[in-house]
């Protein structure tokens, strides 16, 4: 698989949120404002790329030689949880302004299934080497950001619209996400 194909497929065709249903919780939770969704995208991108890199190396050079692939789930989630903690500490010291911007989103990322999902997919794909896994993680983070920021923009407009009483809030957001997913299905033709 070429790099170009990996990127296009991860961002549009198999969009991580709208086609694979990973990371739906933050997609629903922090998408009320465009500004916060941009912050969340930055934090997810940061953690996703580092986590995929580390878990890939662990899978290839520790778990597989020892024959303990069944420990994958436990190892990966521990790596992600400690990474999030570490990133938080380092960021606080090195770049307080970036920490201010991403700070509140970082703890949420531990339970973002998109991060663990991408790590498991990348580690399980025999075709991926380290470089391809990293590209795959970056592309997926962009896909997550694209869906999240588009959706946040739509929701901001939805505030002003007169919605039937029973559909207000969450239900109409889901219907809107459905229509967005329908639009993304159009990209399936590319592949």
């Amino acid at each position: 698989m070429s790099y170009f194909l990996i990127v296009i497929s991860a961002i549009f065709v198999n969009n991580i949120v709208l086609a694979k249903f990973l990371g739906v919780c933050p997609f629903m939770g922090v998408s009320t404002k465009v500004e916060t969704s941009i912050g969340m995208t930055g934090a997810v991108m940061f953690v996703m790329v580092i986590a995929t890199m580390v878990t890939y190396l662990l899978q290839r050079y520790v778990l597989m030689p020892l024959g303990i692939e069944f420990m994958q789930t436990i190892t990966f989630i521990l790596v992600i949880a400690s990474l999030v903690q570490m990133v938080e500490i380092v960021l606080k010291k090195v770049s307080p302004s970036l920490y201010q911007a991403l700070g509140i989103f970082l703890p949420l990322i531990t339970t973002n299934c998109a991060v663990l999902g991408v790590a498991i997919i990348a580690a399980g794909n025999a075709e991926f080497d380290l470089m391809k896994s990293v590209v795959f993680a970056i592309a997926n983070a962009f896909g997550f950001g694209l869906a999240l920021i588009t959706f946040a923009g739509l929701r901001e407009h939805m505030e002003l619209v007169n919605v039937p009483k029973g559909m207000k809030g969450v239900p109409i957001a889901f219907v809107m996400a459905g229509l967005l997913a329908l639009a993304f299905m159009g990209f399936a033709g590319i592949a």
Partner: protein
Amino acid sequence: MSKLNIFTKGFFSENAVFVLLLGLCPTLGVTTSAVNGLGMGLATTFVLVMSNIVVALIKNLIPDKVRIPVFIVVIASFVTIVELTMQAFLPDLFDALGLFIPLIVVNCLILGRAEAFASKNNILDSILDGLGMGFGFAMALGILGAVRELLGGLAVFGYKLADADGMLVFVLAPGAFLALGYLIAIMNKMNKKTT
């Protein structure tokens, strides 16, 4: 809170999917049919009850600062047990659920109950809470799976009702969002009537 109340609140007033909006990824991802939805719901229930028991047992032993990593390790261990058991005895369901089985670890419902309930209550209450929340989650997934299967494939639990094509969109990704949106609206209406 009475014992009965702890058990039943997970079904309606605090239903994980319809009211609290927790654990949405598996909810949307695996509910292409009622059987898959129920299978996922029951697997989650098992992990939830077991992790609630363990957390309730060790809550006084773990220092406050490291409790979240400890909870995650407990949950991840039970998820691995479910994963291996399912692979051995229910290979078809294992293939259908795929990536979402290891992802039970990051289901915010489980960590949420460990943190909000099991770490503050005794074992019996924690078991009841886990069962109620888990069955409520399984019920929600079963309903969503049944609706999508009915509209998308004109089938109920795998049995074809008519020899025709359904609305395929409900089996695909967009249908999951649409169906869940309308189900939440209906659920909101029902909850408002009872209170």
